């Protein structure tokens, strides 16, 4: 049917991608408004905190007033926001209330550790869920499938931090598989990332398994079967590509959860990354650091969601259509 009759406008990849990118930019802007608003909303006088952070004591009202002027706190809120945004775009995230160092520099020292751990964990969870879901589908209702279903039920019901704590205590420490206190390196990240990946993979396996079973029962799988294709070929060549797209979207949705859980994960593995930095800042009311953390996690979440949606647009032309 042509577009006129279906009421659907066949869209090009470029238009759809640009629309999605524009939407991501808007989301990033909205997120940055929230982040900025944390400082004016924070209890206590910001100028006072900044001066104390600079090591000044016994502040007079005149000093505070001149600091307010200097920091632009007397400007209208919109101007303050634009100034702040301009600073952020140039990599200026403010000054830590406790260490007086630029927050951007402190963040850059800790970011690699978190990226390392999260990246490895993500790779493990995708790989594990692919393997588990394929095995479960191929051996449907036989013991491997039953075992994997039991694992997914348990994994889905254990919050990641509880799972990580139990795995660390009973497996890693119990059997002396590795060091608990670690400096951030790829080899040290392996065990924590595997544990996180194993827990994440549980719910993703459930999803992918359901998608694969649905695809295996579909019309095109039936046709392939009638044509004499082997079950393995149907699974890998026909069912898997079709089941991958919803799987990809599901990953996009739960990446927010993965990023949001970083402080917990890092607390359990005593990992010196961004999450540990945030927890320090929370206990000392170090607002610029809290702001920077929320900004960075929000931006990485928006970027990850954008990349996944763009990948989906490339893979599935139907997603490019818009209601006319």
């Amino acid at each position, binding site marked *: 049917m042509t577009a006129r009759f279906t009421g659907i406008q066949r869209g090009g990849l470029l238009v759809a991608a640009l629309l999605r990118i524009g939407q991501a930019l808007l*989301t990033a802007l*909205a*997120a940055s*408004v*929230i*982040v900025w608003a*944390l400082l004016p*909303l*924070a*209890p206590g006088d910001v100028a006072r905190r900044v001066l104390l952070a600079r090591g000044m004591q016994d502040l007079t009202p005149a000093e505070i007033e001149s600091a307010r002027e200097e920091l632009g706190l007397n400007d209208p809120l919109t101007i303050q926001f634009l100034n702040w945004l301009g600073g952020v775009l140039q990599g200026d995230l403010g000054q830590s209330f406790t260490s007086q160092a630029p927050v951007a520099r402190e963040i850059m020292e800790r970011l690699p550790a978190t990226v390392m751990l999260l990246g490895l964990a993500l790779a493990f969870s995708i790989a594990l869920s692919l393997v588990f879901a394929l095995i479960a589908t191929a051996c449907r209702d036989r013991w491997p499938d039953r075992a994997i279903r039991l694992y997914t*039920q*348990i*994994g*889905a*019901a*254990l*919050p*990641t*931090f*509880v*799972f990580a*704590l*139990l795995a*660390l*205590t*009973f497996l890693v*420490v*119990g059997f002396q598989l590795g060091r608990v206190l670690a400096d951030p390196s790829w080899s040290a990240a392996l065990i924590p990332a595997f544990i996180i990946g194993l*827990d*994440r993979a*549980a*719910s993703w396996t459930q999803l992918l398994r*359901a998608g694969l079973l*649905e695809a295996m029962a579909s019309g095109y799988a039936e046709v392939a079967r009638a044509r004499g294709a082997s079950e393995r070929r149907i699974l890998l060549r026909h069912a898997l590509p079709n089941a991958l797209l919803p799987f990809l979207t599901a990953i996009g949705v*739960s990446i*927010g*959860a*993965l*990023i*949001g*859980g970083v*402080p*917990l994960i890092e*607390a359990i593995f005593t990992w010196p990354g961004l999450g540990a930095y*945030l*927890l320090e*800042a*929370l*206990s000392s*009311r170090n*607002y610029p650091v*809290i702001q920077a*953390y*929320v900004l960075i*996690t*929000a931006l990485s*979440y*928006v970027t990850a969601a954008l990349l996944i949606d763009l990948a989906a647009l490339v893979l599935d032309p139907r997603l490019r259509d818009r209601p006319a």
Partner: protein
Amino acid sequence: MSALDITRPDTVPQAVDRRLPRQLWRHPSGRAGLLIGLALLLCAAIGCVWTPHAPDVPNYANALKAPSLAHPFGTDATGRDMLSRVMDGAHRSIGAAVLVLGAVFAIGLVAGTLAGLAGGLTDSVVMRIADIAMTLPGLVLAFAVLGLLGPGFVNLLIALIIADWAWYARLARSLSLDARKRPHVIAARMAGIPRWRIILGHILPGVALRVGLVATLALGGMIGAISGFSFLGLGVQPPAAEWGALLAESRLFFALAPWLLIAPAGFIFLSVLSANLVGNALRDVASPGEA
């Protein structure tokens, strides 16, 4: 779904009626989930009035004992019985989740149906606020709010409510828009029933029932999220017992007494499991047409 983020059930029940409790009970995984959930509630209720030992009286002669008949889950570093601590903490863990979900249910229901039924400017304003609240992952927003308010039990509840209400508002909005087109609502309109009575009597009950069902099934995930914040020391403050805080306490002695982790971890596990099992059953019985 595992509960790193504030998790919610992944399906909204389509057909909900009086038969639902019985249908859930007949479904094997539904029955298991309901039984586990009832057992946990019972445990919390008993824990309010009676525990095998005093949950907060230290007994240093009895510290870090391995599980035994007198102390099925062992004793902690100051000799307090772990089973009693967990039972004492149950009403805090479960109660906190009930409070948060009750609040987001109420806020979401009112804001969502208002936006959906009023339309126009109200709709735009409410939904743009919800959109902004949803730009950040729930946990990150909760951390941000906690950063503003400072750690503490009440502040944690406020942070989670701010982080979670928007999703329920969206759900209530789409369900109420949907309900407007239902035959019984159209029939009521044609019968000349006043608008406010249609909204209160014909639209709201159905929307509330379904949003409430979703909120109930989110209890397990919310217990997990709250215990995570308490584990970090941002929620329930010691010496009050709560499952996440108990995990944090027990964790300090994992080399000497690893069994201390079992009771709090097990109870968190059972609450999420109960919600997952009932959720699975609900997907089977109340969403016909879906595989």
